[in-house]
C-alpha cells in the first residue's frame, strides 16, 4: 500500500529522489490521521534548511501539524497548487499533493531513511 519507489521518515513524510533533487510529501497514513486538510504553509524557494527543521505547516479542520525537512538542502520548488487547493494533499498525497522539492546537500542522509516495508512496519 506504500509505494515501493519512495523513501520514508518517522514523521510520515515520503521522499522521491531524482537527479539530486528530492520531492517531498506526506504519506497516506499522515493525511488520513490529519483528516480534511484546509491550509498548507510552505517555505520560500531558495531557503536553506537542515534535516529535522520545521519548514512548513499542515492544518486540518481540527489540528495544526509541523512538517519537517527530511534532508538538509535548499528549497528548489514548492507546490503552489496546494496553497489554493490543500485538499489535494488528502486526495493525492503521492501525486498532485506533493509539498516541496529539495536540492539535496548531503546524499549520505538518504541512507538513514526507511523503505516502504520498514515504514509500514512502524505503523503496526
Amino acid at each position, binding site marked *: 500500500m506504500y509505494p515501493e519507489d519512495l523513501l520514508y521518515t518517522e514523521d510520515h513524510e515520503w521522499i522521491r529522489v531524482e537527479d539530486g533533487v528530492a520531492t517531498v510529501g506526506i504519506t497516506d497514513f499522515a493525511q488520513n490521521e490529519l483528516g480534511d486538510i484546509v*491550509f498548507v504553509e510552505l517555505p520560500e524557494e531558495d531557503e536553506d534548511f537542515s534535516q529535522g527543521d520545521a519548514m512548513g505547516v499542515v492544518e*486540518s*479542520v481540527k489540528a495544526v501539524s509541523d512538517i519537517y525537512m527530511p534532508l538538509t538542502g535548499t528549497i528548489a520548488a514548492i507546490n503552489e497548487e496546494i496553497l489554493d487547493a490543500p485538499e489535494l494533499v488528502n486526495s493525492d498525497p503521492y501525486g498532485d499533493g506533493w509539498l516541496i522539492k529539495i536540492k539535496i546537500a548531503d546524499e549520505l542522509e538518504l541512507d538513514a531513511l526507511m523503505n516502504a516495508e520498514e515504514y509500514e512496519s512502524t505503523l503496526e
Partner: protein
Amino acid sequence: MGAGQALKKTPLYDVHKEYGARIIDFGGWLLPVQYDSIMEEHRAVRQQAGLFDVSHMGEIRIVGEEAESFVNYLITNDVTKLTDGKIAYTVMCYHDGGTIDDFLVYRIDQETYWLVVNAANIEKDFTWIQRQAEDYNVKVVNESEDFAQLALQGPRAEAILKRLTDYDLSLIRPFEFAMDVPIGQVAALISRTGYTGEDGFEIYCDSSDVEGLWRRIMEAGQEDGLMPAGLGARDTLRFEAGLCLYGHELGPDINPLEARLGFVVKLDKDDFIGKDSLVKVKAEGLSKRLVGLKVLGRGVARQGYPILNAEDQEVGYVTSGTLSPTLKQSMGLGFVPPALAKPGTQLQILVRQRKLNAEVVKTPFYKREG
C-alpha cells in the same frame, strides 16, 4: 483529567468503532471526533442530516416545592416564563458574574426541572447546585449516568424520525419537548433543540436502550443520506451558527454579557446569583466583547492566538477558529475591547509570528433559511 482516572465510554463506544470512528479523549470521555471526514459530516448536517452521540452530556434533576424559585435563583434566564414542556437556554454564573456553565433547562412541571449540562462541568455544576440548595426545599439529583442522548440534526431530521414513531413530531416546536414518545420499543424524551444551527431533535433514553435506537435511526435515515457525525463536525457546526462553547467563548473569567448572551440575562427578574455583578458590569460598560472575525490573510485562527489592532498592539485573543466548511472561508471568534467590536473594524491575528489581516463581521456566520 488526572492521571490514573479511567477514561469514560458512552454506551455506544463499540458502535462507533464499528462505524470506523476515530476516537479521542474529550475531557475524560472517549468519543468519536470523526467517522470519515469532518467536512462531509458537516455538509450532511447542513444538507440532509447527521446523528451524534452526545451521551456524555450531564442531566441534573431539581425536584421539590420550591424548584421554580430555586432554579430561577440559580440561573440568569427567567424560568417563571416557561410552561410545562418548554425549554430555556441559560447560563449559570458565580457571584462575580463569571460563567460556571451554559445549558438548557427543561420544565417538566412547576416542581420538576431538568438541566442538561456540559460533560466537563457535571461534577462542578452538581456540587455548586447542591450547595446553593441548602436553604431551599428541593432535591438535586445527578442523573447523568442513567441517560444516553442522541442528536439528530439537519433539514431531514423530522422526516427521518417520523418513520419511527406515530407521535406527531410537528407538535414539538423549537425549544419544546415531549416525554415518553414511543420510538420502536423505546420510550424517549424528545426535544426540538440542537447545537448545529439546523432543525433537529435531541433524544434522551435509558442508556440500555440507546444502541438499538441508534441503529434504528441510522437505518431509517439511509435513504435521506443520514451520516453519523462526530465531535469535529459538532464543533464546526456550532461555530458557524455562532453558538458559544464552554472553555472557549465562556468560562469563569467571562461573563455572559461579554459573550453577547444578554438575551438570557434577565436583570429585571428577582434576585439571582451574579445579578449584582452583572448590573454593575452593564452600568460601567464591558471590558471585552465577543466578535466574529473574517480572516483575510492566508491562515487559520486558533484558540489562544493574539488579536492585534491596526497599530500592532495586542488587544484581545481568539477563542475558536477554523475554516468554515459552509463559507469555505477562514473565520474566527474572539474577544476584543468594545471600541473595536463594530463590524468592519480592521484587526490582525498573530499566527506563528505572522500577522494576518482580519475584519470584524457579524455573527452567526451561517443562518439557515426559513
